[in-house]
């Protein structure tokens, strides 16, 4: 039925590329490194598409419901009958969808990097890291066991760390990769504890078993998990919240988002792959994977997901309006879009009754948005990469008027901007519509936040677009000899642009829904008027402000100076973190701990040492080297012993 080998090869091929290039990339594969990696990944992509086709159209469906299939499972560490850490493959609509997304974007990035990273000294190492990342991400989405997922989760974190710190001689990149690693690691601690809590109560680590035991109301596991409580909240909710902290860390949700903008220090294609399209949605994927558990057993946790998502979406959008580094704008926009996906999951509920309704629309909408967002955000980043490649700067003020110099980039970037702004008929429109509809039905407050945020999104994206491609005339200066970038850089842009333009027409609800049954997505023309009009208004504002170089943006910034300044400084979240770590943790906890360590712990060791030393200094005269003296000691000792034994 399912061809296990072909599925297993999808993650294993990038791993093979990693091993091959990691071992030999610096010696005799130096020239061919990029092509080898592209070839491996191309094969994996083809296999992924084949698997998706097979799953969705051939064997995935049984009685009109998409099944959760486990074609391969190997018990790796067995604790008892139920509790074991397995290495397996889980196929269900979202994992298959993620397979396609990850391999496709990764392939585009691989091809693009052939041009972008040309001439880099550690070219092969770069491709090796990309292979490692792709492997771990694919492993993550295919995991059949929550612990297996955790393993890959950490692997993804490591490869992200390696790639952010790729320019290791740049201090800012080094700081950024450390920050990314520490923040996500901190969040992963929550994830790990969450796993432990969940597995303690459900008695299993396997996704399918866990979902059934913790969602059916009769099961004793669920009862004990709900009744056991801590601080007035049930243990299960705590578990889910902790798991969500892990997801929020990876997905850069407020307030754990601080690493994402800094992560833009990595090479731009890496940002496109990891920090826009794939890794950062791992958190969304995690919540989606455990969605029935969230919705049925821990609705409070789901509420938290919804509000955190909405808050992140709004905050990030406001910050994005003020940033001047184009990659940072994109980073905040990513965070905002992931916020959209999160609250879409949050407002959704899981209707086990199986009415073809819209109650679990949010789930489908979230996954749909994940899919389309991966396409257009990767496109935006790659386009930004092309611009940076051309201008040699990340700052918006160094750009402007590039539309004549880079026609292909211009068109594709425009398509991506239209898609993210939610202008019909581009991809973002459909997915965003569904999210808004789900929010409208689920939670009115979040709906209005979302509406406002999507208008902001349109504004800042077109601010970016106009600033890069219109605004002032571009002065051709410095040693700017090379053109827009070769075939290898333009091809991914064009392909992704086609995806961003057309992906919206995929009847996504038919394939991916919370319970596996096809979901008819409703489409209300009247409903979509408001978001589209707001989006267009955002675009129009941006057009007025940034089409031509003028004074208006500065004036507005000045009139809103307080808000502008705090948004420009990212609402001082970084400063708060610095304050907490430096002032509170270092000073209040670190200093006394250091004092205790130095004075008390070390002191005890030193006293022991000095006592021993003094005593041995005193008695070392006994060791005279004179044999006969030893003999005397021996004799005296023997006599004393004899006396003791005889008389006592």
């Amino acid at each position, binding site marked *: 039925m399912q061809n296990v080998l072909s599925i297993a090869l999808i993650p294993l091929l990038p791993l093979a590329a990693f091993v091959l290039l990691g071992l030999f990339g610096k010696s005799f594969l130096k020239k061919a490194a990029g092509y080898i990696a592209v070839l491996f990944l191309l094969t994996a992509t083809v296999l992924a598409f084949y698997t998706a086709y097979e799953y969705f159209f051939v064997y995935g469906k049984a009685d009109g419901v998409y099944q959760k299939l486990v074609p391969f499972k190997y018990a790796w560490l067995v604790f008892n009958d139920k509790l074991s850490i397995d290495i397996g493959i889980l196929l269900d609509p979202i994992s298959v969808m993620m397979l396609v997304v990850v391999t496709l974007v990764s392939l585009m990035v691989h091809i693009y990097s052939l041009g972008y990273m040309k001439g880099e000294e550690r070219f092969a190492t770069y491709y090796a890291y990309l292979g490692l990342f792709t492997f771990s991400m694919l492993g993550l989405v295919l995991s059949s066991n929550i612990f297996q997922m955790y393993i890959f989760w950490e692997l993804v974190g490591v490869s992200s760390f390696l790639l952010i710190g790729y320019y290791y001689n740049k201090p800012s990149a080094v700081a950024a990769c450390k920050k990314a690693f520490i923040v996500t690691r901190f969040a992963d601690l929550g994830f790990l504890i969450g796993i432990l809590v969940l597995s303690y109560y459900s008695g299993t680590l396997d996704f399918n078993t866990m979902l059934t035991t913790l969602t059916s109301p009769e099961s004793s596991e669920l009862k004990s998990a709900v009744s056991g409580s801590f601080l007035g909240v049930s243990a299960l909710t705590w578990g889910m919240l902790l798991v969500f902290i892990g997801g929020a860390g990876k997905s850069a949700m407020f307030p754990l988002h601080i690493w994402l903008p800094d992560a833009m220090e990595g090479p731009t294609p890496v940002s496109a792959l990891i920090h826009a399209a794939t890794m950062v949605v791992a958190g969304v994927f995690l919540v989606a994977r455990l969605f029935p558990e969230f919705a049925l057993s821990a609705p409070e946790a789901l509420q938290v997901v919804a509000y955190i998502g909405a808050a992140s979406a709004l905050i990030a959008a406001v910050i994005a309006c003020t940033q001047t580094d184009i990659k940072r704008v994109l980073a905040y926009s990513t965070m905002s879009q992931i916020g959209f996906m999160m609250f879409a999951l949050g407002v959704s509920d899981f209707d086990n009754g199986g009415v073809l309704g819209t109650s679990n629309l949010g789930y489908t909408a979230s996954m749909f948005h994940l899919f389309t967002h991966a396409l257009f955000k990767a496109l935006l980043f790659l386009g930004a990469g092309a611009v940076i490649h051309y201008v040699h700067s990340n700052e918006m003020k160094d750009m402007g008027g590039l539309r004549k110099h880079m026609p292909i980039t211009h068109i594709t970037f425009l398509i991506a901007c239209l898609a993210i702004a939610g202008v019909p008929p581009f991809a973002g429109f459909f997915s965003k519509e569904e999210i808004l509809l789900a929010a409208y039905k689920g939670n009115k407050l979040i709906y209005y936040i979302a509406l406002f945020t999507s208008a902001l999104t349109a504004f800042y994206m077109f601010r970016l677009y106009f600033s890069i491609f219109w605004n002032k005339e571009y002065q051709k200066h410095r040693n700017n000899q090379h053109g827009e970038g070769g075939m290898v850089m333009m091809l991914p842009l064009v392909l992704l642009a086609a995806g961003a333009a057309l992906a919206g027409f995929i009847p996504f609800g038919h394939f991916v829904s919370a319970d596996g049954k096809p979901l008819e997505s409703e489409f209300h023309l009247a409903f979509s008027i408001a978001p589209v009009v707001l989006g267009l208004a955002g675009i129009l504002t941006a057009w007025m402000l940034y089409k031509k170089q003028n004074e208006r943006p500065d004036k507005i910034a000045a009139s809103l100076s307080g808000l502008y300044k705090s948004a420009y400084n990212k609402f001082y979240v970084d400063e708060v973190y610095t304050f907490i770590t430096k002032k509170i943790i270092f000073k209040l906890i670190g200093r006394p701990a250091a004092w205790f360590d130095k004075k008390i712990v070390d002191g005890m060791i030193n006293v022991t040492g000095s006592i021993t030393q003094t005593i041995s200094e005193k008695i*070392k*005269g006994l060791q005279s*080297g*004179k*044999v006969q003296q030893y003999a005397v000691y021996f004799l005296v000792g023997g006599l004393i012993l004899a006396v003791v034994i005889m008389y006592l």
Partner: protein
Amino acid sequence: MGVYGFFTRRNLITMLMSIELMLNSVNLNFIGFNKYVWPNKMDGLFFTIFIIAIAAAEAAVAIAIIINLYRSRQSVDVENAEEMKY
């Protein structure tokens, strides 16, 4: 006699001889006590034979050490061999 010789002589050969003296006196003691205290048992005899064997081996090792010492410092005086101290 043996103990006295061991403590007073500075010549290693003489000291070795003193040790042999001690061992042999112990042997005599063993045989004597065995004969008069437990005449039916043979333990003392066995011990004596055992000690003779050990003494032979020990003498061989000791003489080898002494020869090496002599080669390295042209003397067999214990006072000259005291590097093995603190």
